[in-house]
């Protein structure tokens, strides 16, 4: 009797009730995640919410709900529930198929598997998603044509061979494309390819996504007309010489510069009349903010700077997410399962079967076990 009690308690693990409870809990947290700002600093939650709510948010990890432990536990429990449920049902489905499997009823019989495939698919999606999240790698990469950039935590480098923007006749952008070489640590070519928006370059599980662009320029610094340094500067970033305590920020590049009483702006996105907006900092204080043309010498005391050769830089994301194939298979099983459940209904043996395919069988089985009158 005791073993039967334990068995009955374990049955709850594969029950639909538990599945629905877990789905509802996941749904509730998902709603919360769309309402509550995610990924902010703790101070944000402490400032905007009453003390105990803020503490609750931070303790439960609701500041990052979708990667929180609670969320992972709920999803894992759902996967286990579906695994047990599907395993338990497989026997009865196969029995039924064995009894009536002939060519005439083939499609109808196969439809009994629909719900099973559906649950298997969802389970696969959940498991491979968790695996993918756990093994996820993402790195941002940017540079101008000709630059070689190493990719953090990998043993390869990327040579940006070319970056091109395609324009339509009306001047709007139709596509961004970066040509890339993947190199090993000895600069040996491993792969050549190109990446554009919606068409990433793939290599050994890594995907190279074209995600953005911006302006860059060469920046040369001088002290008393002697060169200090030269480097490529990206819009919004600074040349910072700690020894001299001087820095210059390339605040913005206006590719087709214009100015009126409302301020500075660009007439187009093309390099027709480039002008740099810059700020000079000395010992941490801003000492000048002005504009300069390419090649124009910007002098401040004994220091001078020159911005030149403005050009577009490419912004890429290097990702690796394992388990994508498994998740895709899961998605396919879900769609296939639904198709079978809803659109290939079996020939009904009795009134109860009319309720649905395998769900009805399960219901009758449950009701019998609970001692209910199934007729």
């Amino acid at each position, binding site marked *: 009797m005791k073993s039967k009690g334990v068995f009955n308690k374990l049955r709850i693990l594969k029950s*639909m009730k538990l*599945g*629905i409870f877990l*789905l*509802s809990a*996941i*749904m509730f947290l*998902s*709603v919360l*995640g*769309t*309402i*509550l*700002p995610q990924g902010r600093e703790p101070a944000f939650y402490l400032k*905007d*919410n*009453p003390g105990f*709510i803020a503490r609750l948010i931070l303790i439960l990890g609701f500041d990052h709900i*979708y990667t929180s432990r609670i969320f992972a536990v709920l999803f894992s429990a759902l996967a286990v529930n579906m695994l047990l449920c599907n395993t338990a049902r497989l026997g009865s489905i196969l029995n039924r198929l064995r009894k009536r499997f002939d060519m005439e009823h083939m499609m109808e019989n196969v439809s009994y598997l629909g719900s099973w495939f559906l649950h298997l698919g969802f389970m696969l999606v959940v498991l491979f*998603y968790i695996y993918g999240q756990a093994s*996820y790698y*993402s790195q941002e990469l940017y540079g101008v044509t000709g630059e070689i950039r190493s990719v953090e935590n990998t043993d390869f480098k990327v040579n940006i061979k070319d970056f091109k923007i395609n324009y*339509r006749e*009306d001047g*709007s*952008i*139709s*596509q*961004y494309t970066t040509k890339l070489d993947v190199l090993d640590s000895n600069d040996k070519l491993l792969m050549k390819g190109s990446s*554009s*928006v*919606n*068409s*990433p370059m793939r290599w050994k599980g890594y*995907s190279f*996504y074209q*995600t953005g662009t911006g302006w860059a320029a060469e920046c040369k610094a001088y002290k008393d007309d002697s060169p200090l340094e030269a480097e490529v500067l990206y819009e919004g970033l600074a040349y910072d010489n700690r020894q001299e305590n001087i820095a210059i920020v390339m605040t913005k590049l206006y590719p087709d510069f214009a100015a009126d009483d409302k301020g500075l702006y660009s007439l187009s996105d093309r390099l027709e009349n480039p002008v740099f907006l810059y700020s000079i900092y000395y010992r941490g204080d801003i000492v000048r903010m002005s504009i300069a043309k390419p090649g124009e010498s910007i002098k401040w005391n004994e220091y001078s700077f020159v911005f030149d050769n403005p050009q577009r830089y490419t912004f890429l*994301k290097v*990702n690796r*997410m394992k388990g*994508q194939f498994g*998740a*895709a298979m899961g*998605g*396919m099983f*879900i*769609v296939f399962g*639904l*198709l079978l459940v*809803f659109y290939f209904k079996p020939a009904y043996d009795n009134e109860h079967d009319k*309720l*649905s395919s395998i*769900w*009805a069988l*399960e*219901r009758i089985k*449950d009701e019998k076990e609970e001692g209910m009158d199934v007729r």
Partner: protein
Amino acid sequence: MLDEKQSFLAALILYSLASLAYIVLFISKNMKYSNYGRWLVRTGLVFHTLALTMRTVQTSYLPLTSQYEFASGFAWGISLFFVSYEWKYKIRTLGVFVTPLILIITFYAALQSSELKPLMPALQSKWLFVHVSTAVFSYGAFAMACAVSFMYLIRDKLKAESFLSIHMPELCTLDSISYKAITFGFFMLTIVIVTGAIWAERAWGRYWQWDPKETWSFITWVIYAIYLHVRLKRGWKNKRAAWYAIIGFLCILFTYIGVNTILSGYHSYGLLYMPIFQLYRIIS
């Protein structure tokens, strides 16, 4: 020959007249207005299809990428389902409950900017078009399920000999129609989510990012999945199922309009987060 805007306007006017016809039917209890309403919606659907076709020709892609375009597609989907369900099940009072929905969504479309804009690179994907076009059918089916469920609840309250009751199908028929619409909508919604995930992976490098729109699509999917489970396995039918179908459609509307205007993310046009705990402050 009408252009795209004129065709859309014609559809809007015809849908408005259809709604009016159904209101008159409701008030006058004269079934001849149901015929007027039905033909007005059918003609409206023809003009609406014409408007969408012309926009497709103009843009060289399926016009489902802006708020205006999707709202117009959404209303078109509901009209299409209405015409086919009305024809199949011969429910002459169906329009009383469906035409207001068509009209509201069409008006919402009319309020959006219909300016033709070149497609940005991220939106140039065949997966996007499968994703959004299946959403039109999914949302259309759920709207139909909502309207039929509403009919169910009204029919349930009315006396058997009342005018509307006489011209409405049996409760079990309404329940069955709502269920069928939900199964179709759910199947399509699954394809919406799967194709959306494929597109997201190709465009942004992750097939699921818990972006508010994704999250609310998932929430809606879970709501209908629970509906199907409790209905098929626990025999939840009739009134409870009808209420559930209506709540499900409210979630669809929030996924479509609420997320775009209130919550932020890849899909959205708004940048504000809902101040959840302002309510708490007001209360306290």
